[in-house]
């Protein structure tokens, strides 16, 4: 019975009626009725109806932890690709280092990965990111896995249950950015399993009972080692 579709998929333009509901994210209202604006899962909570997207591009929000790749650098800033339509500048003052003007390249170079936080997003979607928070840093080594940002909550799981599961089995270090960029570092065989598990979560994100299936998948690999 695990394959029953418990979540209702809605399609753009589909009416989302219900008594006294307010339109939330992924919806729009027209002529007093609410419609879905996205392909996604209908979600009703505290009088608001939302559509949880199944795909789409990441839109930066202040406070999000993201993983970005340095694509360009200037004398006092770097440009980060955070897997969104907008490039994110990281200013030298937003780092924990004391950087001389023009010396940015000795700290971060093109292609480097950083775990950063979105600082501000303005009306015309100009983004700024920072490294001045606990735990934010340059990511040395490891590999980058990109998935759709819409599937990040499934990779993290309830209270981080899914990532902890993968971490425990594969003994990898994993960071999941809100933008769908995931950094994995560990022994090559273990990292390969972790990446495969993430890819499977991405592919089967809508299925019910995913955590158990991932658990079984990891068990098949690590029968001898044990959780």
């Amino acid at each position, binding site marked *: 019975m*695990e*394959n029953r*579709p418990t979540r209702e*998929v809605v*399609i*753009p*333009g*589909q009416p989302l009626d219900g008594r006294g509901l307010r339109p939330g994210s*992924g919806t*729009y209202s*027209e002529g007093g009725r609410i*419609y879905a*604006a*996205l*392909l*996604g899962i209908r979600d009703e909570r505290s009088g608001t109806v939302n559509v949880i*997207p*199944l*795909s*789409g*591009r990441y839109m930066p929000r202040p406070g999000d932890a993201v993983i970005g790749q340095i694509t360009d650098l200037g004398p006092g800033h770097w440009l980060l690709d955070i897997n969104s*339509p*907008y*490039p994110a500048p990281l200013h030298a003052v937003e780092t924990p280092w004391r950087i001389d003007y023009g010396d940015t390249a000795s700290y971060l170079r093109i292609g480097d990965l950083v775990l950063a936080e979105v600082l501000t997003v303005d009306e*015309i*979607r100009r983004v700024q990111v920072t490294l001045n928070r606990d735990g934010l840093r340059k990511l040395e080594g490891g590999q980058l896995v990109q998935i*759709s940002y*819409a599937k990040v909550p499934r990779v993290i799981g309830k209270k981080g249950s899914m990532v902890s599961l993968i971490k425990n089995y594969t003994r990898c270090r994993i960071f999941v950015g809100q933008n769908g960029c995931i950094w994995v570092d560990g022994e*090559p*065989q273990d990292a*390969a*399993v972790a990446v*495969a598990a993430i890819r*499977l979560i991405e*592919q*089967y994100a*809508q*299925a*019910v*009972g*995913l955590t158990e*299936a991932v658990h*079984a*998948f*990891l068990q*098949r*690999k690590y029968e001898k080692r044990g959780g």
Partner: protein
Amino acid sequence: MEDIEHLEKKIQLIDPSGRRLDGRRPDELRAIKIEAGVLKRPEGSAYVEWGNNKVLAAVYGPREAHPRHMQNPTRAIVQARYNMAPFSVSDRKRPGPDRRSTEISKVISEAFASVIFLEQFPRTAVQVYIEVLQADAGTRCAGITAASVALADAGVPMRDLVVSCASGKVGGVVCLDLNKDEDNFGEADVPMAVVPRTGEIVLLQMDGHLTPEEFDQAMAYSLKATEQINELQKDALRRRYSVSLDEFRAVQPPAPEPEEEPKYDVYHEDQPGVVE
């Protein structure tokens, strides 16, 4: 050599019983098959088979609009590209944009610009690629139908799916969804695209001549057909996201552990082909 495709000839497009060349009644559609999410690289994609038409649509974006002067600081722009493959028609089509495909690309961009919530993505571009693999009249309609499924698949917010269908006049009779021969030898072809929920028309073109009455009849046929096509679009999108965990359970983990002992030291007692 004689140009047989454009020979002046008398063919009977409608038989005495009112049937068309391919046996359809005037208000009948060709067989339509839609599949969503067929490509891996773009954010969204769809494949449509519409009679003998085969059309692939892919959507990228929203992404940074280039060149920079194309960016609109208040909204996204829609860049649609309709392209016919060289092998899509009976006589090889010279590849690349031409007058016809440039015009179709423009009207398709405008059709989608009116349903996508462009103001949510300032300074970006939504790119829609429509590739006609096999053409048999009505490719722009098949392309729009595919592209709107691809847009939904890409997670682009929009007011509704866009559905498109053509009607025309063949042998003096108003008909729905003309095929190649009817298009070539008929009197008129009217492609249109609608927003099914509101009935808004986002694309309307006409090749040939119709009286106002015939035009109304053609519109009525197309509008009725779009309801049917819309259901196929929705069905394709729902199928895309109905996954089963059974396949997942069969997936084996990658990267076997390296063998501890070298293989040549191992003696296999039950090794096939080894005779004592």
